[in-house]
């Protein structure tokens, strides 16, 4: 169908301002948080109700028009990159909190509701929504479901998949799937798990029931400095070996602490090879007990300096530096390239040594920030896109890091998703049969293959190409959002 015919059909039930198809109107939708990849969509639609979503999908199904769903557009892997001859389905106008039930600790929300807005609505009842991706002030819960978003607290509180009970999904052919339920499990296959993290490839989520968690009485953070990255890695293992699951456990290397200290004055030890931030939360009694034990473990693990936050403002100051790592990378280098591999924690020293070697081999600096508790590593390769050939070197460097993650038994993406960015590395991580099985899963939900085509799962043919996340200073899509 011709674009204008499609526009006129969509306009029969959508208001004029909800069907965009002209140049300037489309510009804001041409990329998500991965701004290096851009594509102008044919049409953008902004439905306000589930009925409108169903009608849009039925039209696209009938006319064989590709559909790319989009939440707040803060994703870092290009999952919402438009299709040139497709409809971009923005879910931002579906933004109602439909029900908040403090007694059962659940909230029924539409996909466009911001992550943080759920916690804000639940706060009067002493509850919150636990997953807290760094973009939580802007990212939408629908996008969180699509990416299975985590956050710094996910070792203790889980990812999105652990914190949702129910999904209402519209398939591309316009059928409703009610997945999960108000109980803690549901009959049949665990489609809730398969939908979570499916990057908008299987269906359009129109309602989500999330679990709410009681707010902790208290939180306190222990900051420990180490003169050797191995000792810091051992300290993480020692904390966990002692039976403690911290609410958050983050590591930064020296190049990172030096870059952020200048920026936020968090009081980090700049001589240290690595800094660990270890947070305890819970009841007043639990935190008092745990913080003492964590401090003692850090000391025994050879920390050269240990500080425990004395009050809430100090706790936030300790965290400020960690949360400023991405912007700091943008400050010390014209461009940076963010990786998202996850590794078994015991391989940390091996992988960091490998990154150091690659760094000098390629002549490119690399900052390392690490969700140490769950092994999720974010190396930030610093480069200058204006230097001929540097971008290409960076991509090679990045690909080698991801391959190293696979080699040590890890994965190419812990939380940012595959999207368009890491689609080639999927070929290294999975065999032909496994990739075929992924395509089969997609076909079970979307036999037409029209939903977000070309993302997340590479065709076998595609497996030779390359891609990556690049952020050019001043070119970042959401410069105001913290990234960690």
């Amino acid at each position, binding site marked *: 169908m011709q674009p204008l015919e499609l526009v006129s059909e969509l306009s029969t039930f959508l208001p004029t301002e909800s069907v965009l198809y002209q140049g300037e109107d489309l510009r804001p939708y041409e990329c998500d948080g991965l701004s290096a990849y851009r594509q102008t969509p044919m049409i953008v639609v902004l439905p306000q109700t589930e009925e409108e979503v169903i009608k849009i999908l039925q039209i696209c199904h009938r006319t064989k028009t590709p559909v790319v769903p989009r939440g707040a557009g803060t994703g870092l892997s290009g999952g919402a990159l438009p299709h040139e001859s497709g409809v971009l389905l923005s879910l931002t106008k579906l933004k109602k909190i439909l029900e908040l039930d*403090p007694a*059962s600790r659940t909230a029924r929300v539409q996909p466009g509701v911001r992550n943080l807005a759920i916690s804000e609505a639940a706060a009067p009842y002493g509850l919150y929504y636990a997953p807290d991706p760094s973009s939580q002030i802007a990212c939408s819960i629908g996008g969180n479901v699509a990416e299975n978003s985590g956050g710094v607290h996910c070792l203790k509180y889980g990812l999105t998949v*652990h914190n949702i009970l129910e999904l209402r999904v519209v398939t591309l052919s316009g059928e409703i799937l009610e997945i999960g339920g108000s109980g803690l499990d549901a009959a049949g296959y665990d489609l809730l798990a398969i939908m979570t993290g499916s990057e908008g490839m299987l269906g359009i989520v129109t309602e989500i029931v999330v679990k709410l968690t*009681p707010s902790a009485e208290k939180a306190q953070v222990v900051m420990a400095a180490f003169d050797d990255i191995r000792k810091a890695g051992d300290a993480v293992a020692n904390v966990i070996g002692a039976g403690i699951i911290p609410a958050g456990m983050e590591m930064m290397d020296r190049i990172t602490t030096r870059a952020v200290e200048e920026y936020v004055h968090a009081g980090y030890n700049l001589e240290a090879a690595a800094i660990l931030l270890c947070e305890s939360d819970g009841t007043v009694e639990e935190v008092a007990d745990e913080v003492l034990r964590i401090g003692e473990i850090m000391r025994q693990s050879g920390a050269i300096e240990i500080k425990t936050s004395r009050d809430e403002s100090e706790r936030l100051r300790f965290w400020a530096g960690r949360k400023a790592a991405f912007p700091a990378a943008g400050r010390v280098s014209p461009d940076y390239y963010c990786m998202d591999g996850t590794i*078994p924690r015991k391989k940390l020293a091996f992988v960091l040594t490998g990154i150091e070697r690659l760094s000098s081999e390629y002549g490119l600096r690399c900052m390392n920030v690490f969700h140490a508790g769950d092994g999720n590593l974010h190396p930030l390769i610093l480069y200058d896109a204006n230097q001929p050939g540097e971008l290409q070197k960076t991509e090679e460097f990045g690909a080698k890091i991801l391959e190293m993650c696979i080699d040590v038994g890890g*994965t190419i993406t812990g939380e940012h*998703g595959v999207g368009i960015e890491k689609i080639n590395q*999927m070929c290294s*991580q999975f065999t032909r049969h496994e990739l075929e099985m992924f395509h089969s899963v997609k076909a079970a939900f979307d036999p037409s293959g029209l939903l977000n085509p070309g993302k997340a*799962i590479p065709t076998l043919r595609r497996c030779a190409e390359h891609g990556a996340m690049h952020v050019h200073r001043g070119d970042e899509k959401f410069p105001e959002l913290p990234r960690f």
Partner: protein
Amino acid sequence: MQDVIDRLADTIRATHPESPLCIRGGASKDFYGNRIPGRDHNLLDASGYHGIVSYEPTELVVTARAGTLLIDLESELLANRQMLAFDPPHFTESATIGGCVAAGLSGPRRSSAGSVRDFVLGVRMLDGRGDDLHFGGQVMKNVAGYDVSRLMVGSMGTLGLLLEISLKVLPRPSVEMTVTLQMNERDAIERMNHWAGKPLPISATCFYNNTLTVRLSGAEPAVRAAHLKMGGERLDDGDAFWRSVRDQTHPFFQSGRPLWRLSIKSTTPQLSLPGQQLTEWGGSLRWLITDPDLPHEDVRKAAKSAGGHATLFRCGKPSMDVFHPLSPAMMLVHRRLKEKFDPLRILNPGRLFPEL
């Protein structure tokens, strides 16, 4: 051990749909699920592929072969003061981790710690073509590809034969205390939900016979402080009590009459269904012992109107109606998934739903 996998794969490849395979691990859950139709199915004994592949206590990850006995796995974890936090039911000593994951059942600690699917990080499996596939991994965070490893949990062997499973493990709490409080069911449901909304270290709840039993777990000062806030008489052998609920050796489960499992919204008031009830998981799980002639439809309706589903957990005779029926749209997706994973329908056909 590769020879064991090769033999299992050969068996799958040699199987014809007219005599499909019935997968068995430790036979501890033979009672559970639909009867596999036809008399001509062959037993696929998966217990020979056993043993722990790797266990790193400080990584909080264990990888075990599917035939590993739960008791062996748990005693290895216990030696490192760790546990399977979803608290899997054993039913018998022969229960295997593969069967545990395939059935997707969790025990009393589930409402606070999470379910078996929450702890599955990765699987190695043979699909219905005998292809050896790996999904997920041995790391906590992994968003590469669809979450097929969690899809396997509770699929009752209908999508593939589990070979290896990687699970997140957790430290055992340093102190546990079980207390009992006397009250009626209405108050108990209200109380359990109220407490669940507070930062209290509650790790299990059970209401039966006007007694609410609660377990507190965590650091000693936290457990002590919570006990002061909540009150209740201390129960001496709390572990034995929770084990009896988990493995259904508690007197409630000994009737021999049909046992229903209703998984519903936690705040649902007492269900008006005939029979005896026992409540777990802060009100989310209701066990019902009832008459064989109570129409299944009545139980399903009650569960559905409470936002959940009902399973005929034990009924003493083979049944084809164990699990809560799915909507046509959901069944269509289920059928397509089954077709992709097991195109010839040779793996546990009908065990979950007659259509699969």
